């Protein structure tokens, strides 16, 4: 199968000017997204995953935020970083949809659901179909049904406050989907929902993706969600991608000590009570003055001298599996990292 590259992010750097100094939220991040695939970005709060996602649509306020000089984001060949706000409005919703984390606050409380979804289709902007009011309504009702909302005629006229959290998230998904985009960015879409509702939403996203063949960038801190939904994973830490690869690679052939730490610190259902969890000691680095070396070095139990001095390169483990860690260098001591899942992978 020939895969079409729809998004190419290269050396993305995004920083914010604050009173305390410049915060380098995202540092030299590069990745590609191909049509129809689901890519997960996982990391803890403050690791830069949301900023990365939002900079693809230029949703971060500028100023105080600004792109690094070499940053380049190419969507279907055209550069996004240099686009103006007006040009971006054409892309948002139509080419790239966005699902926000908190459905409670990201819908407009003064606007009925129907109008809110229809807004994406409206306007006589360049590149948009000129739909009549009736056509828009028809399309909105259709999309509402598709995201699993019943009684659509009634819902069409309701306000966000009349819907539950799960319903609101479905509306958010409808907004992201209605323009028929080729890429959807979902920023922690299920974090604020209950597990049973989360399961519904994940199932829905999977279904819709199969139907529309949309690529999804899925941001979360939940490794379980990634395992269920994604084809590829990128693990972010301290504003950098520390490991990336296919889901199988990351879960069964884990190479980066941080990823290993993450895997070991989740209380899995089949974990015995007598076994202590292995947390990652310490806290994430301060991005006001990011460490010169590896951002994880201070919390890493295998840290060597070089880790504090020099930022590691990306080492290729296998096709598509890359890891930013000095342990992968041939001169480094062979250290056996271990997670429960890695045993499974070897079987």
């Amino acid at each position, binding site marked *: 199968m020939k895969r079409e590259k729809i998004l190419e992010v290269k050396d993305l750097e995004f920083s914010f000017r604050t009173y305390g100094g410049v915060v380098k939220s995202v540092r030299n991040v590069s990745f590609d997204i191909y049509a129809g695939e689901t890519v997960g970005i996982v990391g*803890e*709060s403050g690791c830069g995953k949301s900023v990365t996602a939002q900079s693809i649509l230029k949703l971060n306020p500028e100023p105080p935020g600004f792109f690094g000089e070499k940053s380049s984001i190419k969507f279907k060949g055209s550069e996004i970083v240099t686009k103006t706000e007006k040009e971006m409005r054409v892309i948002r919703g139509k080419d790239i949809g966005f699902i926000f984390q908190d459905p409670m606050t990201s819908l407009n409380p003064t606007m009925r659901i129907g109008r809110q979804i229809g807004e994406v289709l409206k306007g006589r902007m360049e590149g948009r179909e000129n739909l009549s009011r009736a056509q828009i309504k028809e399309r909105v009702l259709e999309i509402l049904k598709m995201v699993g909302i019943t009684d659509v005629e009634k819902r069409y006229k309701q306000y966000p406050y009349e819907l539950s959290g799960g319903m609101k998230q479905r509306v958010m998904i409808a907004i992201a989907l209605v323009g028929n985009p080729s890429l959807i960015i979902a920023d922690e879409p299920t974090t604020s929902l209950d*597990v*049973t*509702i989360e399961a519904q939403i994940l199932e829905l996203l999977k279904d819709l993706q199969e139907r529309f063949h949309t690529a999804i960038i899925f941001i979360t801190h939940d490794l379980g969600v990634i395992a269920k939904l994604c084809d590829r994973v990128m693990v972010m830490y301290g504003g950098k991608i520390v490991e990336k690869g296919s889901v199988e690679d990351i*879960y069964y052939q884990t190479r980066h000590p941080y990823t290993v730490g993450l895997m070991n610190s989740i*209380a899995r*259902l089949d974990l015995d009570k007598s076994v202590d*969890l292995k947390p990652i000691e310490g806290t994430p680095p301060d991005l006001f003055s990011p460490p010169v070396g590896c951002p994880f070095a201070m919390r890493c139990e295998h840290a060597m001298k070089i880790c504090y001095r020099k930022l590691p390169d990306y080492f290729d483990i296998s096709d598509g599996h890359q890891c930013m860690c000095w342990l992968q260098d041939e001169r480094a001591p062979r250290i056996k990292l271990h997670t429960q899942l890695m045993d499974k992978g070897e079987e």
Partner: protein
Amino acid sequence: MNPEKKDDILVKVEHLSKFFHISRKAVLKAVDDVSFEIKRGETVGLVGESGCGKSTVGRCLIQLYKPTLGEIIYDGKELSRFTGAQKFNFCKKVQMIFQNPYSSLNPRMTVSEIISEGIRIHEKLSEKEQKEYVEELLLKVGLNKEHMSRFPHEFSGGQRQRIGIARALSVKPEFIICDEPISALDVSIQAQVINMLKNFQREEGLTYLFIAHDLSVVKYISDRIVVMYLGKIVETGDAEEIYKNPVHPYTQSLLSAIPEADPREAKSKKRIILEGEIPSPINPRPCCRFAKRCRFATEECLEREPGLCEVGPGHKAACIMLEHD
């Protein structure tokens, strides 16, 4: 756990109900006829989705709410009949760790003031002893004494939760109610806090009521689990037993909805996806609360409320199907 004290019941909740009157006609039944017990030295996990009344139970236990009906018996004595001195003593023995470390610490107090507030009331310590004790507590929860004179806003979420834990531990309680203590924290920090709570239990023989919505964490930390749905207990039993052999349809779907961090399993596992959402607890109908979302619901489920039936030693569930067997 101390073996001879194994059957020593510390807290007994009997037919606890808490109703909130919203208007003249509407009653929100947050907790409706809930009974369970907690033995000394064990951890009981209370799970359920948002709005199921799990926090309300916790708040009733610590007397932040006055129960509408029912009794809470602490160490053989009924809570509502406590005298002033007994109440004072109860406050020392029972402590709470709150969900949100951002809003549960007074922003205008320094860390040492926050932690020593309880000590000043309950223990007679000199200024110097008190300071030493606070330092000791801080070390215990993984902070250090330089942090004493700082304010809560200077700390990260995980550190704040540690301050909250130090505050709870400061009066040497025997029973701690943990109301979603880790749900606001990052994964790697969660594990730090869980390990810490487990260590304290081992060292000081604490009893925990662990309230959470994350079933995998609850299963890991608890000896017994109580599953709630819309103000009612639907299943209760040994943690292992509930995980291996869930009998109530709600528990089954709750367990299967947990996203497993194992791609092969996650993709092969057949999940039971619940339809619909948790209904409103305002003026609930006298029927099985879960009936509307249940795969097996029959006419009968909509007609009457099931009681808790024994399905195994210490394992109970409330489902009409079980009553028939």
